[in-house]
């Protein structure tokens, strides 16, 4: 019996599609393998966010909380990395704290993957690499370059308009899966709101004194190379500025009262913590960059941003040498140290991150020098 040609072509096409789906399925699934984080000598315990909010247990929103207890009674600080996994200096700085920092006073909590789900996908249209690589003393480490938002396979579909739960503020529906628009969170909300709720609960239950959310922004963004502080934390930010302004230029912005869902607004309003957020300039997440690849993420060199700087279209100095991840992490770490050093508690309980490298040392040695070698 002769098989009609259209049947043959249909079968061939179907097989090709199956092969492609299998290959691409494996490719995209690889994003679910977490990058290794090696607990350093300062880490005294590791819990999951679901230990504070059991609603997250078993979900892709549950995430590691590293606890670095100095053993000396003192204040507490929470550092959030990976609120937006496509802002790598926040992630790498948080990982560096876990692997290198040894606090001498007080307790440091670090969540390197605040939105764990968002690490498992990339954003359509952005063409970002799935991974980027950082050289350490003992070899190359890899990190995932995820999405700004929760993976749609964990939370979907988005409504056309996102209504912030506690304020009623409306934003584009694409913000529904943005962790930094979901605070203070909602116990029975969507996954993103539940993650925010878990972090808010941790802050309340552990009486966290200072919370710092590490971010990056595109170089054309208005708030970049900046500390954004809740009105309760403005004084601390100003004091810290004195410590770091000899090394780099950074501005302080007061958290807007009419923009809701962000850490620096809601954590300051709904908890007793001093809420701060930091932004560095990341060319790979902007709209003006040229070809995108891992080295753009790490080295931050981009000819179009350099051109745009000449046209006055970016808000930070951006030259031919770009802004590499080492400088971006060094800014974050230096400010974290400064926040701890300048914290003036009423109860005389201080926090010290111990022997941390200076801004200049980090720039000279590279951020890889302070990361664990791959095993």
């Amino acid at each position: 019996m002769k098989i009609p040609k259209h049947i043959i072509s249909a079968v061939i096409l179907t097989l090709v599609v199956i092969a492609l789906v299998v290959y691409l399925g494996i490719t995209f699934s690889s994003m679910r393998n977490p990058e290794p984080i090696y607990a350093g000598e300062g880490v005294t315990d590791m819990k999951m966010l679901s230990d504070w909010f059991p609603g997250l247990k078993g979900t892709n929103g549950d995430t590691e909380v590293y606890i670095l207890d100095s053993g000396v009674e003192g204040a507490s600080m929470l550092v959030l990395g990976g609120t937006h996994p496509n802002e790598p200096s926040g992630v790498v700085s948080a990982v560096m704290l876990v692997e290198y920092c040894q606090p001498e006073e007080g307790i440091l909590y670090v969540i390197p993957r605040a939105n764990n789900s968002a690490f498992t996908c990339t954003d359509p249209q952005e063409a970002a690499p799935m991974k980027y690589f950082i050289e350490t003393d003992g070899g190359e480490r890899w990190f995932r370059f995820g999405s700004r938002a929760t993976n749609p396979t964990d939370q979907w579909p988005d409504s056309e308009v996102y209504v912030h739960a506690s304020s009623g503020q409306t934003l584009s529906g694409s913000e529904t899966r943005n962790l930094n628009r979901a605070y203070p969170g909602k116990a029975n909300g969507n996954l993103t709101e539940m993650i925010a709720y878990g972090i808010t609960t941790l802050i309340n239950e552990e009486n966290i004194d200072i919370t710092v959310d590490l971010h990056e922004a595109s170089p054309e963004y208005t708030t970049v190379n900046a500390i954004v502080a809740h009105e309760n934390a403005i004084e601390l930010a100003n004091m810290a500025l004195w410590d770091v302004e000899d090394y780099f230029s950074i501005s302080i912005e007061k958290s807007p009262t009419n923009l809701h869902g962000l850490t620096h607004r809601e954590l300051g309003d709904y908890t007793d913590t001093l809420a701060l957020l930091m932004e560095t300039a990341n060319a790979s997440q902007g709209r003006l960059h040229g070809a995108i690849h891992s080295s753009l993420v790490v080295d931050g060199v981009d000819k179009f941003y350099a051109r745009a700087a000449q046209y006055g279209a970016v808000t930070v100095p951006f030259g031919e040498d770009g802004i590499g991840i080492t400088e971006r992490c060094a800014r974050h770490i230096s400010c974290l140290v400064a926040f701890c050093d300048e914290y003036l508690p009423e109860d005389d309980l201080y926090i010290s991150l111990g022997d941390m490298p200076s801004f200049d040392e980090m720039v000279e040695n590279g951020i890889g020098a302070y990361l664990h070698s791959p095993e």
Partner: protein
Amino acid sequence: MDLELICLLAMLGVFLVSNMVIKLPVSLSMMFGAIAGALVGGQGIPLRHLFEGTFTYVDTMLIISTAMLFMTVVQKSGALEALNAAIVTRFYKIPALMLVLLMFVIMFPGMITGSSTAAVLSAGALVAPVLLMIGIPREKAGAIIAIGAIMGMAAPPINIPAMLIGGGVDMPYIGFDGPLFLLTIPCAVFTVLFLGLKYCKNLDIEKLKSQLNTEIGKEYGFKLYLPIIVLIVLLVVSKALPSFPQLGTCLIFLISSFVGLFTGRKFNFLKESADAMETTIPVLAKLMGVGMFIQVLTLVGARGWIVVSCLGLGMVFVYIATFTIMPAFGAVSSYGAASVIGVPFLLVMIQNTSCNDIVVAAVLAFTCCLGDLMPPTALAGNYAAQIVELKYKPVLKNCIIPFLFCIAVAVVCILNTNALSFLTV
């Protein structure tokens, strides 16, 4: 010459040759253009990026698909015929008012959902037969629907490009209603009167009645309109009451379609819906092709080249590009235009002029919405043409003057942002 420009030219060249010379469908031509760009840019054939790009419009494609089902149900159940008869017999004596009211009906779903596609496929499909019946030629009726849907997409309370632009600069979506009404209402009224009024000045009601099916309304009564009423109520309630479960446009279309299965004339839903989907698959494929294209555009750096080149030509060119390149980018995606071009343009305008930022953002968002007229995607134009059973070229041709009027209104607004700042309160 920058490699990124060479990539861009390769992408456009292969797309045009594939579509116009080899006569491949737009969707496949876009895919081949994307592959060409990736090859020239040294990325090989980036399967992951081609695949990921197709997901850009997955939500839009679901809205289109469910809206097509709703449209089929409303047509086949007889609700459309009954509605047409009711509108024409009530308003035929005041044609200008009738046309303006019909325009607002077309706009309404777009205002609520922020999607021109939803507007065309729901209200546009309801109003199209009325426009044709009162004597408006098909191509002009299609143009009225396309522009009306876009004005609905741009009008408050929901303007997604404005939200995207605002989100890019941390500007809350507050104070946009006044400027957006100022931009959209005059354009909508002008369009419908310019294209339609001369055809319906002296309507012969007896002749019209002979074309109307006035019996079906009597046979099934009020319940015939239930799917339309359910659609409107759910759209309004889910937006007006934040505590109401967010059903989403797709589910609302499906619920309304389900209701329509029991309220009028019986028909074979499976067969009719399969036929409806068959007609829409080429447009869905086109969206997937566009998704691949824009992903590779970003991958090879051509997106950055376009934006930086615009910024480098100075403030005057930024204004010119706002009214040329930004709507043209809508050929790829109007939402993409808002995010990729709208945000840097707004930042440059704020930094270099003493303009009112909300009015500027509203004008940029309005201009982005006009991109839904741009071929090859031309979401609004494509579906409006399909509804009036034409190819989209004659429909788009009739959109040119209303489009230019819209641009003129936008230019006037952007040159007078401070004078209009009272609208943002």
